[in-house]
């Protein structure tokens, strides 16, 4: 069964006042990766999800959640 993933990356990034490029630089991925994750087009690997959470000083569970 395909499950839908809710992500709050755009909001968390905005809360930190970061551009997509600045967050990408902190995480070590391309800007388009941040863009596609924010748009729900791309589901990142566990490693990138953990790096995103660390860069935004939060937990993976706060950034990503399975839709009920």
């Amino acid at each position, binding site marked *: 069964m395909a499950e839908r993933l809710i992500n709050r990356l755009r909001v968390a990034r905005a809360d930190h006042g970061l551009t997509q490029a600045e967050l990408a630089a902190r995480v070590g*991925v391309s*800007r388009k990766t941040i863009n596609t994750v924010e748009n729900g*087009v791309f589901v*990142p690997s566990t490693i990138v999800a953990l790096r995103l959470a660390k860069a935004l000083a939060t937990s993976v569970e706060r950034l990503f959640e399975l839709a009920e």
Partner: protein
Amino acid sequence: MTDTDLVELADSYSRRRAGLALLAAVVFLGGQFLAGSRVFGARPQGAAVTVWAINAIILLAVLATGGGPWRGGRVRALVHDELSRAHLRTAVVVGYWVAMGLAFVLYLAPPFQAFSAQQAIVVMVTGSVVVSLLTFAGLEGRAHVDG
């Protein structure tokens, strides 16, 4: 150069690569039409066949590696990050199914039109490579569009 500058540079390379993939697909396919029977004839021969084969090998190498091996390590890692690798995988899978589809068409065609092995190879490789490049260009181009 700051990390953000590197990301911006990688973004620029990545956009250019998507455009070049589209251009390469069009030029490669267009070349087949211009070469006509020199490449797609029953017994293809001459420089046109060699040019076709070299182009095909180069484009397959680009699809296998993502291209740009001469770029610096950090920029290349950003250009070829997990999203681009996923796009390349998708493009190659789509190209594989196109090759399988063309193979069946060529297999079923003999009652109407006989093809030599070389013609079949040209059709399958050209179709597969062109569709793979177009798929990659489309996925990468769409990833750059801000949502």
